[in-house]
């Protein structure tokens, strides 16, 4: 049951308890209880909205930074990852397999801002051996949402 509720909320965080109750055939009280518990134990981390900022003229620059790291004794990559993700500019931080170690998504108002962050705050972190910055040129799809070019349905309005 909880997975069904989570799927519904993940798709539309504004679905009301009553709507979820109808969609899952569970009582509103039970639904509210489950959601409250999920919020408490951090299964539900946050309710967010996906915005296409370009439409309000607020341009943002994003970049993916490959970070090569010398892992620390005993703690591996975690300590360095934490130092990085404490910065609010670091929107996402992942440990990956492959030719580099950490992938950091950084956003800022301008390319300069992002570049400054990388060179002044990210690269100098102890343990960071090197960075490669890839600036995002265009966002097509984010978090399962296609940002533009979505076509409407072309169905026959009535069909027997």
């Amino acid at each position, binding site marked *: 049951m909880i997975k069904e509720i989570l799927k519904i909320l993940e798709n539309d965080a504004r679905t009301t308890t009553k*709507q979820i109750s*109808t*969609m*899952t055939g569970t009582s509103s009280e039970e639904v509210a209880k489950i959601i409250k518990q999920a919020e408490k134990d951090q299964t539900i981390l946050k309710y967010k909205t996906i915005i296409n900022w370009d439409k309000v003229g607020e341009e943002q620059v994003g970049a993916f930074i490959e970070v090569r790291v010398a892992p620390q004794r005993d703690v591996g990559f975690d300590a360095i990852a934490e130092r990085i993700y404490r910065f609010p500019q670091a929107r996402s931080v992942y440990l990956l397999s492959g030719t580099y170690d950490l992938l950091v998504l950084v956003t800022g108002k301008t390319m300069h801002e992002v570049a400054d962050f990388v060179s002044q705050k990210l690269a100098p972190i102890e343990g960071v051996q090197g960075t490669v910055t890839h600036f995002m040129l265009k966002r097509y799809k984010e978090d399962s949402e296609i940002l533009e070019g979505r076509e409407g349905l072309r169905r026959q*309005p*009535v069909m*027997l």
Partner: protein
Amino acid sequence: MSIKVPSVTSRRLNQIPSSGIRKFFDLIVSMEGVISLGVGEPDFATPWHIREAAIYSLEKGYTMYTSNLGMPELRRELSRYLKDTYNLDYNFESELLITVGVSEGLDLATRAILEPGDEVIMPDPCYSAYNPCVILAGGIPIMVPTNEENNFELAAADVEARVTNKTKAILIGYPANPTGAVMSRDKLAQIAEVARRHRLVVISDEIYARLVYSVEHTCFATLPAMKESTILLGGFSKAYAMTGWRIGYAAANKEVIAAMTKIHQYTIMSAPTMGQVAAIEALKSGEDSVTEMVEEYNRRRLVIVQGLNDIGLPCFEPRGAFYAFPSIKGTGMTSEEFAEKLLIKEKVAVVPGSAFGQCGEGYIRCCYATSLAEIEEALSRMGRFVKKHKK
């Protein structure tokens, strides 16, 4: 000066009703901002991996005819699917035919088995093509009333009461359009018993087989002694959102398939090649997509049924397809009146139940294959309408 030209069209066509929704369609397209619950297909595009397989085949130049029966690879996959799903053995070389949708399958089935004047028993209301197909094939449709109290299920006793020495077949379609009704294994077995006793062919339209909610779908051919005498019609349109591809199949004994193929080879040659390629991909890898879509339909089903009951349009719980069939009798209007007024006053389109048979009078068909937001808005508008017009 206009000279009256004598009609050149066959008088046979006078026996077939013209579409009950033509004027509706015209009215709807002339209006803006209409929420249509009158659609008859999924609001999902065909899953990308299926489209991609077809596109790739076009790039490779697979644009020629296929075998009349359909691509052997598709028939093999289909045979495997029917074995895995229903434990039915259909020989892919002689007992399966790939058709242009279940629509063509129905046309072929009736034309393959009916002699002029043969009777075919079917439920009322039912999908609007059943009647015309039987008539076009030279047969006579015998309608059996079904009603809301019995969840629009076809009663075996009612069927048997209408069997005559001219009865050739029973034509059923569960899960059903327009009612959303599903019949249990037991009740279908009773109908099978009637078919067996009177040696009737059963044409079973199971296009909505995958769209069932909290119940199991019973494939008619799996009932005792029914495999030999059932013409199983199935397809990809609803389960895999492939309505436009025009691909379906018929599974039956060798004799029937050979007869259907005889007609098919002259009238159609072979079903669309790119559709067949898509169908292969659907059978191979489409399961997850189907499950996802069915889960989404179910959520919407619960919302619309609850909503219709809440606004004063009592609706029995449909367990299959994607239609709700609420009663509008409380408003004192006919189905057509209700639908037309609702469209004009509140810009919500539904299909009058009368378009599906006499027993559909007093009901409307609401398709919930549309976004939750649209369903909620439609319910709100309908609620307003019902309040004003309740008797």
